[in-house]
């Protein structure tokens, strides 16, 4: 208890929960999604497959990242009509993506009644400098990060949930691992620092000092943290869970594979039993072809979606 008193005494955790009532409700939904798999879907039929597979939420978007990559062009918020159809079709939460900085797309998504907005680097950014100010919205936001500084900047803007960016649409897990390990390493470092040193670190990583201090005290990000960007197999999903994620987003990995329903179910099982190698072995068998994938090492820097946002 001594430790808790210290946290309350410093004011950051307790004050935030006392003042920002609606943030507790936003963070609350994120916590309900923990230990689950959120799947990208492009129509109501795929949303039903995802729901039956055990997805804890679906992400409605017009094209999965692999197709956005292949087809090029400007990727925008999905057609509200399509999102409404998905909302009417499934009972699990429905998320949708808005372009970085495009606060009007966010206003529209909130008006439709989506349960979560992903301000996402997978879509073409609408603003070269600014991310959406997320606190004024009633709907909660999830945002991508490559490192601790980026995660804390998004939380400071009001994000109630963080995900690693990974490299969407590749089926290559290397970037998701890189980003998760970066966040973990920086949290370990922060935990060992005293107050004066933490102030320097906050400046170095471009993060608000109060949030960095709270992260150091908790030994984890102050909000729910999922993995995203490159998860293609049950083993990938369990790898991210063992690295400390709270759950997993799967984009192209499911509906770009040979048997979507089977693979989706297997990834759900893998996230629940992420430490049980015997179950992981069972669910990994006979899934048909995984998505073909792109090797991130062979992508040019301009082709990397994770570079979008700051």
């Amino acid at each position: 208890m001594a430790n808790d008193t210290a946290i309350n005494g410093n004011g950051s955790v307790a004050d935030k929960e006392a003042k920002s009532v609606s943030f507790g409700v936003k963070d609350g939904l994120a916590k309900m999604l923990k230990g689950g798999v959120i799947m990208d879907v492009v129509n109501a039929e795929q949303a039903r497959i995802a729901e039956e597979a055990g997805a804890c939420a679906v992400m409605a978007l017009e094209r999965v990242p692999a197709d956005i990559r292949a087809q090029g062009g400007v990727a925008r918020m999905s057609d509200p009509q399509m999102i409404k159809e998905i909302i009417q079709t499934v009972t699990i939460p429905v998320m949708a993506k808005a372009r970085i900085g495009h606060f009007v797309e966010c206003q529209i998504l909130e008006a439709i009644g989506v349960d979560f907005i992903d301000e996402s680097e997978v879509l073409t950014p609408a603003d070269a400098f600014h991310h959406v100010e997320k606190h004024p919205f009633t709907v909660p936001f999830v945002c991508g990060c490559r490192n601790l500084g980026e995660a804390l900047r998004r939380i400071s803007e009001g994000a109630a949930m963080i995900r690693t960016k990974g490299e969407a649409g590749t089926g290559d897990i290397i970037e998701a691992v890189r980003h998760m390990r970066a966040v973990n390493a920086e949290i370990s470092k922060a935990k060992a620092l005293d107050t004066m040193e933490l102030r320097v670190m906050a400046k170095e990583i471009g993060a608000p000092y109060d949030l960095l201090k709270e992260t150091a005290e908790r030994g984890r990000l102050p909000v729910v943290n999922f993995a995203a960007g490159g998860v293609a197999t049950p083993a990938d999903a369990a790898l991210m869970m063992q690295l400390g994620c709270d759950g997993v987003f799967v984009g192209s990995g499911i509906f770009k594979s040979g048997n979507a329903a089977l693979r989706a179910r297997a990834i759900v099982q893998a996230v629940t039993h992420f430490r049980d190698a015997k179950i992981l072995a069972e669910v990994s068998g006979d899934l048909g072809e995984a998505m073909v994938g792109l090797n991130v090492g062979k992508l040019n820097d301009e082709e990397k979606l994770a570079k979008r946002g700051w």
Partner: protein
Amino acid sequence: MTANISVGVLALQGAFYEHLKLLKVAATQDNPDSTTTWRFLEVRTPAELSSCDALIIPGGESTTVALIAARCGLLEPLRDFVKVHRKPTWGTCAGLILLAESASRTKKGGQDLIGGLDVRVNRNYFGRQTESFEAEIHLPFLDAGKLGPNEPFPGVFIRAPVVEKILPQVTGEQLGEARLKDTVVAPARETGKRIENAVEVLGRLPGRSQLLKDKFGMVDLDNESGDIIAVRQHNVFGTSFHPELTQDVRVHIWWLNQVAGTVAITPKK
């Protein structure tokens, strides 16, 4: 009397860690005279479930939890745990849905229920996430348990269900409910002995219009017309809100006391 009591938290999906954290705090603030040694564990397999004396089914997505439970071979053991072995069980939000004998507005094709509470729940009664809210609620059972008389409890409602109907006690399935459109029921269990206890309403939220007028106002305790948000039948307890998302440990302390009472009078297997 010394007792070792194992309390499991179903860890298939959802906010199970938050329950475990608060249970550990509650155990330290337990009755000082108590000699109970508590063990808290995550439950993902039938073997882990069978080692438990009591269980919490946390919030999460009820469809997801039901599907995973069925695939892990846990659905039938869970029904036996609640309805045959009659071990104390508490469900929050999604957990309340799973413990209901009847549920409306479930996904297409319905969903599996565990059952144990003769109630019908309305899933996502308040609407989508933008309608989620916090409200101070009054829980008279906490007063009776001397856990902070008249202190309102911070109720967190996330896409929350409510109990929309208390059902008659029947042996076997709720057949009347099964005939309703878009409603699913839990399958029957041979219990051997019939449970005499009726469903008790342990908490209400005042009418929705009043709530929207003053979202964070006090609950009028005398208002019997409010939505039912906490129920108990025998040793099955359900809440549509999330005590585990708060730092208020009173409901957890109260429930552990109930568990301790039940386990003490039930000889171990």
